[in-house]
């Protein structure tokens, strides 16, 4: 909450609200005011906040699809190469292109790569892991993983002016407004 250490660049202004409803409200207000670089924080995902914040549809689905196709095609190509092209062997007299037998492995690899896409794609989209973040300098912010609901308008936003932001947040009902500095 301290506002000293002015030698550090300001990261943004963090404000707390009481509950999920207020978070949605304040997010909507901030969004309407044309801010782009802001974020809300809550201990669990809040139903409806995507609309309030005008969040774009996640690109994750495409990432997963790409990985899934890669897994599918890769598995088939691998099995074809090993069983038919590189070392064809007569196994139980079955034809080399014994496709029914390839289904399980193809399926599993499709799922596996899709899951990798989903998990690592999500982390990638979220910019995680990121262990150090200016917000962590705020003691109050710890509540974000407990029962705190926060909004932070970042200094990068072209409209960012500390006083205006403070006023906006206060008007919208936020408490515990503090300035976050990047303490490099």
């Amino acid at each position, binding site marked *: 909450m301290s506002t000293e250490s002015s030698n550090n660049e300001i990261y943004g202004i963090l404000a707390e609200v*009481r*509950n*999920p*409803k*207020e978070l949605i*409200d304040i*997010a909507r207000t901030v969004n309407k005011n044309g801010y782009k670089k802001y*974020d*809300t*924080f*809550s*201990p*669990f*995902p*809040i139903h*409806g906040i*995507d609309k309030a*914040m005008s*969040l774009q549809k*996640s690109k*994750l689905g495409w990432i*997963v699809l790409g990985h899934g196709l890669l897994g599918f095609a890769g598995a088939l190509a*691998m099995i074809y190469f090993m*069983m038919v092209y*590189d*070392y064809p*062997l007569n196994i139980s007299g079955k034809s080399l292109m*014994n496709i029914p037998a*390839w289904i*399980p*492995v193809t*399926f*599993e*690899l499709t*799922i*596996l790569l*899709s*899951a*990798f896409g*989903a*998990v690592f*794609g*999500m982390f990638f*989209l*979220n910019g*995680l*892991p*990121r*262990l150090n*973040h200016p*917000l*962590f300098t705020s003691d109050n912010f*710890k*509540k*974000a*993983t*407990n*029962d705190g609901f*926060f909004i932070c308008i970042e200094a990068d936003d072209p409209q960012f002016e500390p006083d205006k932001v403070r006023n906006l947040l206060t008007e919208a*009902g936020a408490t515990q407004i503090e300035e976050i500095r990047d303490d490099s």
Partner: protein
Amino acid sequence: MSKTYEYVPEPALVKGNHDFSSINSLITDINLRPTPKGWYIAFGLSNLLLFVLLFSIGYLIWEGTGIWGLNQPVGWGWAIINFVWWVGIGHAGTLISAILFLFRQDWRTAINRFAEAMTIFAVMCAGIFPAIHVGRIWVIYWVFPVPNSMAMWPNFNSPLLWDVFAVSTYFTVSLLFWYVGLVPDFATLRDRIKSKMGKMIYGVAALGWRGSNRHWWNYEKAYMILAGLATPLVLSVHTIVSFDFAVSIIPGWHTTIFPPYFVAGAVFSGFAMVLTLMIICRKIYKLEDIMTVDHIEKMNLIILVTGSMVGFAYLMEFFIAWYGQVEYEKAIFILRATGPYAWAYWIMITCNVLSPQFFWSKKLRRNVAFTFFISIVVNIGMWFERFVITVTSLSTDYLPSSWGYFSPTIWDVLTYVGTFGLFFTFFLLFLRFMPMVAVAEIKGAMPQADPHNYDPETGDYSPQEIEIPEPNKESV
């Protein structure tokens, strides 16, 4: 004719007067409190069993698979039985996380973390067996498609190879799924723990999670996709495990009913195992508010349903053996019920088919002690199911000259018992260091999490009254 319908409201998921913060404390305090003495005792015992496992495996590798009771017709014994049993148990977690998630069963939040952890550890126990049961464990890497100077590849026609891919994929995806769920809770612990070391460890594990709703947005998407992927995966795994048997030509194995029958059995045993562990933990860790009797009842219903499915499968096997008129198939089923392994068969029937039928009674399925008892009985029964399938079929197959009886040795028993050491060692570590209930998820499922439950004027919490729709009097 007319019929009236009564609207029965869903019971509240969390009992007691809890808000976010108290739920947060209720769960994470378990990890933050000093380690209780009882935990050390349990951990010591588990370690002892784990040592038994390691010793058994060491001796096995030193001496050879001959130390087990395997013989010429019965090439697969306890190792494969244990493998299938543990993998089956390992189905509950993903099932609860994924399928119930897709079906929007919010009650899963109380138990999913717990069940997923159990899944991971059960699959670890299971995974040991296919690896150690081979004759030459030092070349087991040949089952992986690794380029080598022999220019040889694995055989993709083999169900065992499918197993390798299925079980390792299942383990990996379950682990990822579990971890993704844990990330926000690690962040919670990071923010609550006092010690520097704890902060570092949970901090790394939480990957810098800060509860951003932009993150939650991708996160929920990922969770949904993972659930969508894990659902067919969990069905495929036991399907493929059942292929180990169904793709063969051994009477009693070679049957198309195996995939659904195995999956039902897996769910059956998995839920039983979750119940066993849950009933102990909710008592010890005083989580009755979260893991309520309603949860137990719901799970008992699933046990009743899957148990009956399994029983139906047993019946169908006999029916098909008769209907198919394959003499070897007929003989094997008659021998199962009346032959040298009849004792195992009737244990299986009693435990798996008869015992869950008690849950037709609402009173019994809400009885915690009785549920605990049945959950153990079911797991014993499911072990015997795998015994009956694996051993009896091999023991008396086509050529009567090759029939032979299987008797386990002490090493079969010790290896099996030892896996409990592995399981509980990991499980106790989990209970100690990780939140055993998905904190973020259960918060999200509380009525306080719903923005509609707040007064639009004051912004204070005021849960909405449930509107009871008018009974429709016209329709059937």
